[in-house]
């Protein structure tokens, strides 16, 4: 899925990323805690690293490569194959706009337009203030709530463009 969002362009395309990645020492300390060996499951490790740092920093992947004895190119092959791995830092809140069939037939594209308009970014981008990262997803499996979006772990269902806008504003105001 979306293999073009790979090594360089990536998640922050078009938006300034000012956050510094983790230091090598931080990476090592975290991987020590995981007890990485050549027999560890790579996807599992990547999910944990991303869970810790919010994305997959290059130095972490290099360190993983050394410890698992898997070539870095192979690791990147896996990273870029799956939609949920990111090689660049993303906004504090992740917005997933569902484009599943049920959402689609219930006007998801209008909702997505409203989100894009409100935040001034496209899919795969982060707002310049690093608050929101916007992504579309094939289906959230909450079709009964269509059209739906997810902000971090919270679902918002039965959206209209107006409601989506109001929800985003409440996040801006709230934080």
């Amino acid at each position, binding site marked *: 899925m979306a293999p073009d969002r790979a090594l360089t362009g990536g998640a922050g395309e078009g938006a300034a990323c000012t956050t510094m990645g983790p230091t090598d020492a931080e990476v090592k300390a975290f991987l020590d805690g995981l007890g990485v060996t050549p027999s560890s499951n790579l996807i599992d490790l990547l999910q944990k690293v991303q869970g810790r740092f919010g994305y997959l920093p290059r130095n972490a992947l290099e360190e993983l490569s050394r410890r698992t004895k898997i070539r870095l190119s192979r690791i990147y092959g896996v990273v870029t194959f799956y*939609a*949920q791995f990111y090689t660049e830092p993303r906004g504090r809140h992740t917005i997933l706009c569902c484009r599943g*069939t049920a959402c689609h037939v219930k006007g998801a594209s209008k909702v997505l337009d409203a989100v894009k308009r409100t935040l001034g970014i496209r899919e795969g981008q982060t707002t310049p203030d690093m608050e929101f990262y916007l992504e579309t997803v094939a289906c959230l499996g909450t079709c009964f709530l269509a059209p739906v979006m997810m902000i971090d*772990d919270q679902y918002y269902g039965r959206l*209209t463009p107006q409601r989506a806008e109001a929800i985003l504003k409440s996040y801006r105001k709230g934080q």
Partner: protein
Amino acid sequence: MERMQSVHDLNRIREELRSRPRPDVEIRVCSTGCRALGALDVCRDLESEIAAQGLQGRVRVIRTGCLGLCAGAVAVSIQPGDIFYRGVAPSDVREIVEKTVVGGAVIERLCASGQNGPVANREEVSFFKHQMRRVLSNCGVIDPRSLEDAIAHGAYSALAKVLSGMSPDAVINEVIASGLRGRGGAGFPTGKKWQFCRSAPGHPKYVICNADEGDPGAFMDRALLEGDPHLVIEGMIIGAYAIGANSGVVYVRAEYPIAIEHTELALNQAREAGLLGRNILGSGFDFDIEIRKGAGAFVCGEETALIASVEGKRGMPRPRPPFPAVSGLYGKPTNINNVETWGNVPGIILNGAAAYASVGTAGSKGTKIFALAGKVSNTGLVEVPMGATLRQIVFDVGGGIPRGRKFKAAQMGGPSGGCVPAQFLDLPIDYDSVQKIGAIMGSGGLIVMDEATCMVDIARFFTDFVQKESCGKCVPCRIGTRRMLEILTRITNGQGELEDIDRLQRLGEMIKEASLCGLGQTAPNPVLSTIRYFRDEYVAHIVEKRCPANSCEALITTTCSSACPAHVNVPEYVALIAEGRISEALDVIRRRNPFPSVCGRACHHPCEKFCRRGDLDAPVAIRDLKRFASDHVKEIGHPPVWRGPRRGRVAVIGSGPAGLSAAYFLALMGREVKVFEALDVVGGVLAVGIPGYRLPRRALKRDIEYIRRAGVDIETNHPVRSLHELKEAGFDAVFVAVGAHKGLPLGVPGEDLRGVEDALSFLRRVARGKVKKLRGRVVVVGGGNAAVDSARTALRLGASSVTILYRRTRDEMPAIRDEIEDAIMEGVDMRFLVAPVAILGDGRVHAVRCAEMTLGDADESGRRRPVPTGKEVEVQADYVIVAIGQAPELDFASDDGTLVVSRGRMEAHPVTQRSGEGNVFAGGDVVTGPATIIEAIAAGQRAAQAIDVFLGGTGELPPEVPLASRAKPDESVAQIPRQPVEVVPADVRRGNFDEVLKAYSLQTACTEARRCLRCDLEKQETRRHV
């Protein structure tokens, strides 16, 4: 829970759990799917309210999985009484505790509604009544986070039975005998698959639960894992025992956080209790399960790709054979089944194969869970026997289509499946029947689509999906789907060509043949099935540059304006009304439609059906606003009259809506137009067909006067006998718009009796004042607008009773809904499922003999066919009005070979209205058969443009100069409800021909107009932005 050492321990613990005192009241709250709409807040408030009332210990709040009716979120059920509440909010909690928990009373406001009012008992709610919940029997009942709850409700009983002496072969044989087929989509016999894996050489062996439910629109597996994870785990343990596997994996997508959480918890509980791990229940059998989270790749639902992903690699499929049963995970024999398949296993073992197979069809046994979503009232999780029909699922369980729209298709099987059109509503659904009609059962996602869903766009949507999800390993899938997407995109953008349809079919067949895995082999299905059943929609996009569902962005302005056949700029004039600029609003309407006064009353307003405000609460009352504008402006006004010399002479035959609309626009474009009308009144069907209580004559006269002022010359009492006559008179072009005024006969004996008349001639005679009174019993045959108009007219003329006989039921009547409603309120009797076979009488009619009908299977349009039952009834009648159809009278042109006629109607190009190669154009009912006023007006408009171009002009309609404010509506407009129109009470209006509906006041109209969401501005803004 203590660690169980034996089956005996398990049984003992179950008995202990069951004999524990139960609370007086149990409140079950869906805390998985409904969480998105505040279920956890409801639970929390319930608990604190129960504590506040000192009811702890006596009342238990259970956070369950999905109760099924997701449309009723937050869904709650209460024991005793099995009371079902829907749409529960925290603000309802106190009342629930006080009235229902303490008082034992039902709160009707929170109940589901049935045919005769609110329904309290869950089993009686139609959504549940038509289901058979077997696999889901504990889902929404137990707390999925509690092993104790699960065991008390029978979890692991099947495992106990297996470990009490069933051999692995006996288990496999039982599953084979049950006829269970894989619920993941392909439907391979599960027992056979287990047998292959068991007999494959190699050790260790693995079992995998495929919970990578990636089909957009499917959420069965999610709900089952969230709501009853122990059921799935139990199925896997039994399978592993039968196959001889000691390790298992649940591969679940990361988008399902609750499912992951509940499964993880359940695995830990089972492990601690001795139900997983070493020496399960002291049997000597070892088996454990781990969870692997997917990382977002649809192709991982394919079994070989899934295995690669579990191994930590890129999820790419590989050719089969070898099948995973021989060489799967880490090269070892592996058995993969999906969540629902595993969930079926315990029931088969516990109740036996015979009991299981007693449900279902010959080739597909048991039940099937469907995720019902899209344009259906009761979205949710549905379990029905195999062999249930789509009609049962969508209408009985699903409650039908909201907003009075028509069912168009159901998409089954996700990106690998297809669209099932209305004609198959009565087909029993099983693996084989669905395959035959070009879809697949798939995992059970069932997305309902209505008139507002574009089938080309759906095909594009799925192709976009598979193109993005194609892993890229094989060329046909990677490149072929991209080419298909490009073609579909250009069609939806209005840049397609007719050859594209063949190209898509050729490409599709090629991709199916040549792709490596299931993803590619099925990827073209949505495209091929939509071409198969909805080719006309493809053609409309290509030829007319029109999206019939008003959904393709590039082809529409706003949904309302696009849904209007005449493309009136609705948001513009509605906004002007909101600003109080009524006369300008009227001008905007007249740029595209010279009949605001007529259409403000008698239009069937497709604009409102597609109004997006209707998804929020109710559509903007567009027709009533149009009526208001035309009534409020007292001056008839002046059109932008052509100032120069008029060039090109055009004859228009017929002064109905099509003819006058064409004449009006041609006059504005500087043509010399003459309208020939056979009768002595102008207006065609508007004057002699539609009764005055719906369309007063003065309203029609206003519009006609305005049209005359544009420079249109109308000659009445001038029937055109032949087109030669017009040519000789020197006309350069002719527009034929004679309508369809010939009533079709029933074709039964007795039609020539006195007192039998066709509806059009009856309505015409009434309109001309030839019938003033009607005595006795009137019977009207038919279900369309002419039938309802005749019935209501007969009532007003003094008939002692009026009965409509219709061969289907009210739901299938083609007449405008509101008119049917009004007729019944006025006292028209309707008898359904009767078809006349003879009219009886002696010189004069005295009765109609009818065959009683019943509804059979769906016809092409999805409406159920009437089928005679063999019984007959007689209905007494003094008059019989026949309203079963109308046809054009084309004999005026029988001597002329230039007219293109087919099946009794004239043929014309859908865009130019040109008939044949000459200078003859045609439009309105003469081409379409009896249709609507606004469609006729639109045909006239199109013909005017084409005739102007034919005569060397540009064909340009009056320009759409923006007048209204560009300010977006503020949030407060969301709170304004649709403003009702005053209606004359039924008992008053049935005695006269006065207009039934009143107009808005200025203030009410402005309020109503403010409800418009101004989708026109949104679109402009999005265009600017992206």
